[in-house]
């Protein structure tokens, strides 16, 4: 390469290709993403725009660089299928027998099934119909949609009503950091989008589900070690104001233990920025079932019928092919 223009063309070509690849194409593919519907009976629009206070809180989050220690993206290693009973049917003995034969198949490894605690606990007393109390609950877990489907049919044959629940799995999900992997849709209204690259602190994608109380967050921001023992997070006291109690104490004042409490006659109140940040944190959720990242929303323990309904519908809409999971 002797000539300047040639070098220029080479570099131009290389950068143009990368630009088309990682700037233009993502725009065409995910830059025009629209709201979608969540799966299941109670289909809702997802995501929804941030409520005003949470939107302001996002600015506080950005300004103070929370992103350098907290990611907001849940990983997922795969999807498994849980076999659950929604209704025991009329012939309880047959249902229990079917469950136990499936449990045998699981032990013999003739089917790729893992018994779940709901089954294990009552194995000592198999005829006990306690096994069937507190439905809907999951009895088996299987990574194979075929085996799960076979188990489903075996159970349904007994007049019981069985369901398949789609359950994303992975270390992050096992930690309770979210219900499913994060997808592009989750960030639709984020500005700036802050997926983060570090986990000096825990992932916050689903912190609003985990810790829904804004007061918890306010106390945690003021004195992290008060709420999380041994936390290495720095305190954010500049988001609070220590002021003299005028006529009566503010309802917002933090309830602090003696060693952190302000001198008598004073109180510590969160500034609007702190309240906004707490509002933002409690509005972070990563549990909506989406077409690209399906999961079955269900309560695994005894639940009122109203809560169970969407779960069962979600299961029926998703169940038959156990659609191609995330990965």
């Amino acid at each position: 390469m002797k000539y300047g223009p040639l070098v220029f063309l080479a570099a131009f070509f290389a950068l143009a290709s990368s630009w088309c690849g990682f700037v233009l194409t993502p725009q065409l593919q995910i830059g025009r993403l629209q709201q979608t519907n969540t799966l299941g009976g109670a289909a809702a629009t997802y995501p929804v725009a941030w409520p005003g206070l949470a939107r302001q809180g996002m600015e506080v989050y950005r300004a103070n660089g929370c992103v350098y220690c907290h990611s907001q993206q849940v990983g997922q290693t795969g999807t498994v299928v849980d076999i659950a009973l929604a209704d025991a049917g009329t012939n309880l003995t047959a249902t229990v027998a079917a469950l136990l034969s499936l449990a045998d198949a699981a032990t013999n490894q003739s089917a790729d099934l893992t018994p779940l605690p709901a089954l294990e606990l009552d194995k000592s007393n198999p005829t006990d119909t306690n096994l069937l109390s507190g439905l809907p609950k999951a009895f088996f877990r299987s990574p194979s949609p075929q085996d799960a489907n076979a188990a489903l049919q075996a159970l349904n044959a007994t007049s019981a009503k069985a369901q398949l629940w789609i359950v994303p799995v992975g270390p992050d999900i096992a930690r309770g950091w979210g219900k499913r992997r994060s997808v592009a849709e989750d960030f639709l209204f984020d500005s700036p989008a802050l997926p983060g690259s570090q986990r000096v602190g825990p992932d916050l994608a689903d912190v609003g589900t985990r810790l829904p109380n804004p007061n918890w967050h306010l106390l945690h921001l003021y004195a992290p070690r008060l709420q999380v023992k041994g936390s290495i997070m720095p305190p954010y006291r500049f988001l609070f104001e220590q002021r003299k109690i005028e006529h009566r104490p503010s309802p917002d004042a933090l309830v602090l233990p003696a060693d952190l409490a302000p001198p008598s006659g004073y109180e510590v109140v969160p500034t609007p920025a702190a309240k906004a940040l707490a509002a933002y944190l409690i509005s972070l959720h990563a549990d909506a079932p989406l077409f690209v990242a399906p999961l079955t929303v269900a309560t695994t323990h005894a639940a009122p019928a109203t809560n169970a309904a969407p779960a069962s519908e979600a299961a029926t809409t998703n169940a038959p092919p156990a659609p191609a999971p995330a990965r």
Partner: protein
Amino acid sequence: MSVISSPSQASPADAGAELCPPDSPALIDASCRLPLVVLFLAAAVWLVIGSAFALMASLKFHAPGFLADSAWLTYGRVHPAGLNSMLYGFCIPAGLGVALWLLARLGHARLARPGLVTLGAVCWNLGVALGISGILAGRSTGFEDLEMPAYAARVVFLGYLMIVLWAVLTFQQRRERQLFVSQWFLFAALFWFPWINSTANLLLLTFQVRGIAQAVVAWWYSDNLLVVWFGLVGLAAVFYFVPKLTGRELHSRYLALLTFWMLILFGSWGGIPRSAPVPAWMPISSAIATGLGLITIIAVGLNVYQTLGGQCSKLWSHPSLRFIGFGVVAFVVVGLIRAAGALSEVSHATQFTWFTVARGMLNSYGFFTMVILGAIYYIAPQLMGAEFPSAKLVTAHFWTAAAGILLFVVPLAVSGVVQGLKLQQPSIPFADIAHGTLPFLRASTTGDLLIALGHLMFLANLAGLVIRFYRARVASAWASATAQIKPVEARA
């Protein structure tokens, strides 16, 4: 630009009236002096400021309450302020300074419009100062490596254009038409930055794209800056200085050509992390491109090794070569780590951990900063026509910098792998994982401290050199001014 077939005929055929014989090195150095002094001195100051911020951020892992009550000095602001001081305060302007000098020297042509280049340098540094104070004031954009608020980013961009316009002109006015390998790298780098920087600033700050597409653009930008731009400028310096200072020919032009193509073709496709919540083809293509980056690494390692004739001890013959040699080793190590990260097993174990920080530091510090420092240690005495005030301080800087980088990078890398493996096991509580990283983070503070110390030595030495030069100039000007009076009076 006219195209000439033979470099030997170039001079007379090409430029006609404009063309004079090649400029002498002394003339070239004189033309570069003012802009480069401004670029290098300001860069050295930012280096010290940046390492002070980094030290402050690191100390927060010893005591989370340290300077926590001031909004301006909270970790989430001090940390990016430190990174940006390093990146935009030192790396890019110092790299540009080295690029200007290399382009002028290799083209045997004076720097075009040194005054305007100086103005550009001032504009750039003004923008960086605005940007860093913006970050501290809470106006950070939130995008990693692009934190400076829009108003500052525009000033910085303008400063870049004001410098690079004249760099391109210098390149075009070169007397030696035959291009040396370093010139390909530099010429590509010159316009790489405005393209990626304007794209990122326009799409992230002015006409903001939606949702996660922002993060994709930000990843693309930082990869193109930290891998491609750093690679282009850093390797240009390596390919120039290693042969020059060892007095040998560059082993292979073709290997260098291969390096160039691989770097611009595949380097520019890395950057999307494996875990990213985007359609799968993006992280996969990034992983493939990163894996192919291995070719770049092998080509560079082989070329430099062969140029040295297999005698790495030659690197000790010149203080600048030590820095550059360290940089080449760091470049190879970073490249290998990055290529290993293309495997999903490795990337799963290192994502979201301090390992990525260690890798980033080894790239921008161990590779780029060390190479550029080595280049400055060679260029500055040429510009000033004098040696550095203290040669011992140069050696001391090398050892503190090398030890500092190792003490910073190794603990963080180890801690990152441990952290990553533990994150894969949900039975280990997160608080324990966070605590497990603390001893390593605290050890890395020693590295920060040594690096900061080295930067102080560099600043002192460079400032000493510049002050001596200008003091001598003022003294001689004063002497000649006072001397002139007598004959005039006598004549009168």
